[in-house]
């Protein structure tokens, strides 16, 4: 009986540990290759990690670095963007992404946004979804407590204060909740892509024979709005729209 228990315990401990050994050693080996300047080998290892489902932001970041060192700017930006999606407030990821963007050919002026929209976007980008949601719950609880205080309080002045505060906190909870929700939508959205070929022609309709609208170059970010067969409709930051072959881009 005792033996069986020990074996069971061992089994329990070794099973998860064994599963972690493989990605750890692969990751360390890739890092070692990178530090020795063997970027191609490092990139292959990082790639295999990602293909096996070990999609940590660090892996994407390091793969992006390896690609950048090999001057594969498109792939570098793609991986930095993926890392940034998983870990939106990492300073290193943002820095390298920005630097890699400086190496792209296309200089696209962003369309000016309505100032309220811009503020709203800036506001909800302050934190990621989880933090917004935690904040929302805290505010909600505080708001409920204040309502209780309002109800139980005997003095009229205090009642007024508690009531207005509770309304304020409830509004805060709603606002942060919406922010968190939007952020989670954005996290899951798969409607952005990076141009992966040195240059790709954007057509006016999903047909190779249609007229050329503009040319995009490697590393440019596009928003995917529609898809027909092998073609996707994209929009770039300056608002221009067109159709491009799906093989030219890769979803972030």
């Amino acid at each position, binding site marked *: 009986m005792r033996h069986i228990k020990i074996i069971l315990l061992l089994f329990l401990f070794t099973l998860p540990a064994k599963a972690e050994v493989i990605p750890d050693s692969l990751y360390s080996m890739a890092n070692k290759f990178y530090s020795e300047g063997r970027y191609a080998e490092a990139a292959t290892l990082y790639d295999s990690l990602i293909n096996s489902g070990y999609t940590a932001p660090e892996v994407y970041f390091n793969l992006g670095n390896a690609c*950048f060192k090999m001057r594969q700017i498109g792939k570098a930006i793609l991986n930095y963007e993926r890392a940034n999606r998983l870990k939106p407030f990492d300073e290193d990821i943002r820095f390298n992404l920005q630097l890699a963007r400086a190496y792209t050919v296309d200089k696209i002026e962003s369309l000016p946004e309505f100032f309220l929209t811009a503020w709203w976007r800036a506001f909800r980008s302050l934190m990621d979804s989880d933090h917004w949601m935690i904040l929302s719950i805290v505010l909600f609880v505080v708001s409920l407590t204040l309502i209780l205080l309002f109800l139980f309080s005997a003095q009229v002045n205090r009642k007024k204060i508690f009531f207005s505060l509770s309304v304020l906190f409830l509004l805060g909870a709603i606002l942060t909740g919406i922010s968190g929700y939007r952020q989670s939508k954005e996290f899951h959205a798969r409607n952005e892509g990076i141009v992966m070929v040195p240059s790709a022609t954007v057509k006016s309709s999903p047909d190779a024979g249609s007229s050329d609208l503009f040319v995009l170059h490697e590393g440019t970010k596009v928003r995917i709005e529609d898809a027909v067969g092998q073609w996707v409709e994209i929009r770039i930051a300056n608002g221009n729209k067109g159709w491009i072959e799906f093989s030219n881009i890769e979803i972030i």
Partner: protein
Amino acid sequence: MRREFRYVLPLVLVLVNSVTQVPAQDVDFKASAPSVVATGEPFEVVYTLNARPEQFRQPEFSPFELLGGPSTSTSTSVQMIGTQIRQNITVSYTYYLRANSTGKFEIPPAQATIKGKNFSSNALSIEVVKGSTPASQPQQGAQSPSGEEAESIKGGKDLFAAFLVDKRNVYLGEPVIVTLKVYDRMGLSRLAPPKLPALQGFYKNDIPTPELRQLTRENVNGQIYNTGVIARFILYPQKTGDLTIGSVEFNGAVQRTVTRRSRSWFDFDFDFPTIQEQPVTFRSEPVTIHVKPLPPGQPANFSGTVGDLSMAASIDKPELNTNDALTLKIKLTGKANMKMINPPVVSFPADFDAYPPKANVQEEYTTEGTTGSVTFEYIAIPRHPGTFTIPPVSFSYFSPRSNEYKTLASQPFSVTVNKGREDTTITVVSGLSREDVRLLNQDIRYIKRNIPDWKNKQLLLDSHLFILWYVAPLVLFALLIGIRRKTIRERADAARMRHKRAARLAAKRLRKAEKAMKNQQQDEFYEEILKAIWGYLSDKLMIPLANLSRDNAWQALSERGISGELKEQLGKIIDTCELARFAPAGTLPSMKETYENAVVLMEKIDQNLK
């Protein structure tokens, strides 16, 4: 002889001093003669020695015809240097020769024996051209009207100047050596220094040229001219295209024989020749030089230097302390316009404070071009200890000779910097050793090396149970509200019950009081009356008995519409009841009266209470 311009023939005759002896090894035995002569023209060959020979053997002069000689002359001079007296002797033998046939001939060396030792002079090479009647003579005669000696004449075929350039098709920056020469067959006797033209598009270096004292004979297309070099310079074209060296105007004078005819009183013509100077002007032809751009494929560090160079680089010490100066010298030697060489770029380690280089140029201008060297001195001060490498310094130039760009490179230098003494920080310019982090280069941040969390990222919102975080506080909230409501309601119910029962309780107490009255139990009676009144007030006004006082009871009563009269009566009854326990009997209203008053009053209050 007369045509020779300032012909110097030292004929200082003999001041014999037999003591003079020159050491044998210093014997200087030279032969000199014009390099070009015309047929039929007499010329001199002079042998000069600086010692008196015991024997002098003249060479075979054929095919020249010996007209006369040797005429021997000796000159001595005394030189005093400090206390030393030195006597120099010059012995010369002059022969007069004439050539009869054209061609190039050689006169073998002459032999001389001095103190029993044999010496020989240099051999002479003489070119003989076909003799022509000297151009100046007939022209002079034809062109000279009597008495107009001051008229200026123009030079021409017999007197001209020319710029001689060594090449007319050059690369940008490739030197051109220019010689300004004057050619004369007219007997030039005086020449003012000419004003050289402005040389636009060129950088000029003058080649030092001795002052023109004597023209030399030269064969120019079969004609013997007396020539002289006026100026020599090196030109560096600074722009491409056709550049022109402008013409130069010369002012001088020629010597000429004029036959002057004078008329005597006796109507007797008398011709006599005189030598007189006549001003002459002549100019040189402009010269065009085609400058082509340098061929393509310039190295990145090429800065326009054209020539042939070699480089040497050195550092003064491979090991030094922080804040000591390190000197790196780069010396470029060869043929180029040294002053125009830009210093090569030295990439000192970023931690070094580097100063702009100092250039030290040494140039010599010869007919070969500009030669010399330029030394660049770079001073750098390391601020931090460590081992640093100064990468190789490279310098590129264009070699017109091989028609290609060449790059010179030094070896890399390794410098070890040791930590200097602490007190040397005074040499650091900006305070303490703190300094801003300098942005040397933009590069991506290094990879992350921490083992990541392999769990796939899940957002809180991805879980449907997340809503519980809102629901749970809400449920708790509702629960609390419910409990509160319930207790309030319960309390309210209890009060209402007591309110309802108030009159009944009061009546019960009053009945007890009545019973006590009948039994003449005075204390009990008043106590029951008080209990009835306070109990009633407590229940009706919903004030707990313990908190009830006359003040708050009266206030509550007036709030509920009880008049002051009733309150006064009530007060009186309470006073009576409280006093009755201590006051002697008879001073107070009877029990019966008190009882009746209380019953009436209670009824009234009960009716009026809102």
